[in-house]
């Protein structure tokens, strides 16, 4: 029985490989899986927490001990401009470099061919005003170290590490970037919308019972150099003061679409 299935799948795959895009039967009432893979690098080197060292354009040497950020409000667009917005409450992801499971969030979306992926890096103002009983899972203010208690609000992006250029007792740098626009008084908003064009490296073809794996390379080196060069020596700690908006502009630039694997079998009991 198993053999037959394998053979069947193999034939199907071959057929699929040969078929043109517009041969796919699309039923927008059916849902298929999209898996977004967040693969971290720093400049051109793989991210390995603690052990690997990297450098920035200021020739400062650093490692990374913590990397966490929120990806929320996920949307998919088609070439005709049609958009599918994932239900807001199903669209809160905390990407945490130390937690392999968090790096590949799965989402169910209607069958179709999607040419664009959009998400918010951070936690928007609407979410920041949720009542406490709705703040569960990754939004739990007590459990993820991604919430500022005294200036109430989520931390959108957090990176910590060590650098000999960080002039403090532990030679550590810490960038905790939050601020969502304020509750009553308008403040800085460091949420950043990220739009990724999927047409160059492979559009996402979503089919029921199959997974379309969108593989993103996330270059943490951009945090220091994408738009505004950031010096660790000058700014070893950035939270609510210092160049937090510059870092936000930089983190908006760190996502690149590498490739897409369409029609992937969904392995059950996957972690």
């Amino acid at each position: 029985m198993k053999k037959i299935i394998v053979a069947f799948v193999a034939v199907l795959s071959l057929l699929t490989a040969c078929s043109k895009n517009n041969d796919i039967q699309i039923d927008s009432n059916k849902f298929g899986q999209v898996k977004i893979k967040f693969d971290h690098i720093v400049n051109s080197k793989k991210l390995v927490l603690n052990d690997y060292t990297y450098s920035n354009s200021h020739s400062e040497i650093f490692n990374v001990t913590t990397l966490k950020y929120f990806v929320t409000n996920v949307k998919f667009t088609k070439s005709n401009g049609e958009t599918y917005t994932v239900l807001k409450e199903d669209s809160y992801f905390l990407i945490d470099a130390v937690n392999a499971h968090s790096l590949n969030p799965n989402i169910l979306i209607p069958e179709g061919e999607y040419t664009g992926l959009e998400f918010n890096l951070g936690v928007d103002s609407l979410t920041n005003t949720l009542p406490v009983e709705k703040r569960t899972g990754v939004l739990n203010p007590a459990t993820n170290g991604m919430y500022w208690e005294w200036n109430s609000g989520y931390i959108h992006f957090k990176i910590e590490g060590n650098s000999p250029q960080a002039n403090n007792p532990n030679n550590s740098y810490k960038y905790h970037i939050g601020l969502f626009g304020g509750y009553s008084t308008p403040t800085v908003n460091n949420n950043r919308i990220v739009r990724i064009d999927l047409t160059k490296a492979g559009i996402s073809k979503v089919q029921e019972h199959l997974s379309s794996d969108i593989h993103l390379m996330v270059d943490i080196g951009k945090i220091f150099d994408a738009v505004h060069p950031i010096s660790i020596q000058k700014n070893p700690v950035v939270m609510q003061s210092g160049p937090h908006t510059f870092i936000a502009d930089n983190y908006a630039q760190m996502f690149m679409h590498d490739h897409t694997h369409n029609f992937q079998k969904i392995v059950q009991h996957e972690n």
Partner: protein
Amino acid sequence: MKTKKKLSVILLIICTVWACKKADDLAPDDFLGFKKPSYFPEPAYTFESTPLTRETVELGRKLFYDGILSRDHTISCASCHISQNAFTHHGHDVSHGIDDQLGIRNSSSLVNLAWSTSFFWDGGVPTLDLSPIVPIHNPIEMDGNLENGLLQLQTHPQYPSLFQKAFGSTAIETHQVLKALSHFMVTLVSDNSKYDQVQRNETTFTTQEARGYTLFQAKCNACHQEPLFTDFSFRDNGLGINPAKDLGRYEITQQEEDKLKFKVPTLRNLQYTAPYMHDGRIYTLQGVLNHYNKEIVLTDNLDPILKQNNGIPLSREEMEDLLAFLLTLNDESFITNKSFSQP
């Protein structure tokens, strides 16, 4: 839905029975819940998601007085919010937390919190429910970790059953801890000062108090609005910068116009809550009046009302009258209420 209706009916019956009882018949531990005094505005806090019950309030009270959520179990909410002092840290300009470390602000009176639209001197927290995480996690206050706290509560001999009674499940979750604390804190309503009794026509002011009340309405009520004695706004009242370089509301908004602004505090229970101001720099009420009378610092964001009049000019006689009125805001039944004290 059906349960809701049933509950309403039961509540109605309870209320009816209650209404027939005389106040004297009530044992001190009889549960009154949360009741809005008729002349108070609508509260900001709501019970839509989680009804307030005897069980949620009693659980909150136990948590409020328990050091279990602090790093070494030595500091509870009540360490710095003492019921006999209208839930302030009486006598301390700033409070000492864990390992006797000092903060930079005077612990606020926890009173009439259901009406508050923001929390802490800088208004950095928008809801009461999110407020307790601040002292629990603050390294110089309780230095705890709510995640660990939840584990401690889950393995505690009493808490799981108390959470079961309050919320219907033994799984203890962040929001339940916070709701329980909120429910206890919103019951801390002070509405039985002489001022309140006058509002209810149960008594009258002395002539001096009445003169003070008139003065108050003319010179203080713009910010310390009746009947809560605050308008919850943020203002620079001319204290100038302190050695801690605390910029108040600016720390939250990073807006120039918010530098040195702090939330207008209530004036209720002043007799029990000395010292005064966000950093507890003034030890007596006379000192506070002296500040407004002649010690105002002309800072950039000084409140227009104070700027316009160069403070609040008061003659010696006016000060005495005003002090007489301010003392009518003390609510002895609030600070002696047994259902607010350590269970």
